[in-house]
């Protein structure tokens, strides 16, 4: 399985990829295609506390500014500065290089209620 196939998904098009306690979060390839050229990503700060289902970042494209919701609760331990410097990276590689931030999860069971790759793909056909 590749990373996209291993990830879990929210209805609002965020993906989360867990590695032990650490969850990496970004937006799906489907989402980047829909919102078109991304010009800016407003990331949370390292140390910020995030809550599942709550707004934690903003993606700005030429069309609109869209809120990003956190798929899991916990503490932000790393942010992807490459995406701050080069927002188009999200369009090029939304589910690999274009990740947004990493969270140290406070409750791994929160992942259970998210869609898997097949469910997400089926929903967005």
């Amino acid at each position, binding site marked *: 399985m590749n990373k996209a196939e291993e990830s879990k998904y929210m209805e609002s098009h965020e993906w989360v990829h867990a590695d032990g306690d650490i969850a990496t979060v970004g937006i799906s390839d489907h989402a980047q295609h829909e919102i078109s050229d991304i010009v800016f990503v407003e990331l949370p700060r390292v140390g910020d506390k995030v809550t599942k289902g709550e707004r934690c970042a*903003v993606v*700005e494209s030429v069309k609109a*500014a869209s809120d990003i919701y956190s798929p899991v609760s916990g503490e932000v331990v790393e942010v992807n500065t490459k995406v701050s410097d080069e927002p188009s990276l999200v369009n090029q590689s939304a589910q690999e290089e274009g990740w947004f931030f990493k969270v140290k999860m406070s409750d791994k069971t929160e992942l259970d209620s998210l869609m898997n790759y097949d469910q997400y793909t089926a929903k967005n056909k």
Partner: protein
Amino acid sequence: MFVSNSKQNKEEMLAKIGVSSFEELVKQVPAQLRTKEFGMEPALNEQELIRHSKELAAKNKKLLNFAGGGAYEHFIPSALSQIVNRGEFLTAYTPYQAEASQGTLQAIYEFQSSICALFDMEATNASMYEAATALAEAVNACVKASRKTKVLLAQALNPDYVQTVKTYFKHAGVSFDTVNCTNGQLDLNDLKAKLTADVACVAVANPNYYGCVEKMHEISQAVHDAKSHFIAVVEPLSLGVLAAPGEYNADIAVAEAQSLGTPLNYGGPFLGVFACNKEFLRHIPGRICGITKDTKGQRAFVLTLQAREQHIRRERASSNICSNEALCALSATIYMALLGPQGMKEVAEINLENAHILAEKISQTAGFKLKYNTPFFNEFVVECPKPAEEIIGKLAAKDILAGISLGGNDMLICATETKTAADLDAFVKELAEVSK
């Protein structure tokens, strides 16, 4: 020109909508709100209206003006009104449609470029309404960027600006503290004592409301040492002789740019300026004009970074400002272009000189004393032998606006380049008379 709808226009429109009359169209509105008497006099024709307006205008008295306090009388070159009153500029609409607004957008771009050069700052917007809301927006940007909730305001800020800022944040969970003044300048020790870790920003004016020049380099250093942000409130014309905000690392600089080519206009419209460093680029309120290339590779001007604004971000926008003062900004641009860097310097020097000559003459007049022993630009505070209000009243009868009362016997007096030596002497003579 406004052309009202003819009876035929109205009938066509009503028929298209499918109602028989205007009354039927508005029948949802409660009857008691529909037809009101406003007690207005019958309409005047053009000739009558012009005569009536002239009679009203004739009631104005033009006083020899020595009042400043944030609104300054400066000479405006005739070439300026010739350009700014051109129909293309005067009646142009907001430039949301770039392909139809290149002239307006280029003018805005030139304004932004001129301001960045004058202020020595990296970025600016297409202008704001006036300095008070520009300062409130600067505080807003710092609070949002830092996520801190305490704001320090210098005591010597224009009281109108302070009132506006506090109104803005009345229910926003931001607290304010005042940094005291000694001998007309900000007390650095008081500043350092109040610079706690929760301070989002510090706002200081230069020159300040008392006309005094502040030690901006030292203040900026102290603010940055405490990991806070520094907002400078500056007088654009004074930048011909005083250090620009970029020189002392202000994070944001705001200003009232009425002094750059806009007449006093009985209090408005004025022209706010908001300039900052790239760090704050996405926190800038209002409109920003950028330069790019079109599909044919030609230079083109556009509104940019629009995703900040409320028509896209809605309640998530950092500010609800989505407008600017295009015509006043154009006046400022023309003024700066007509004067150029050398002209700006010369005008500032004449202001400095006139104010200092006047201050010297007044301090040698019996009963009058300069209140602060501090460098000043074109305004200064005088301790009068009688209440300032009384002196202002008496001099108004002699067609002189003596200054602004700061309460008690203190008066704020201004002398710009518009005053001749004879004007200064006439003023001092009347001051001497009234104090007897």
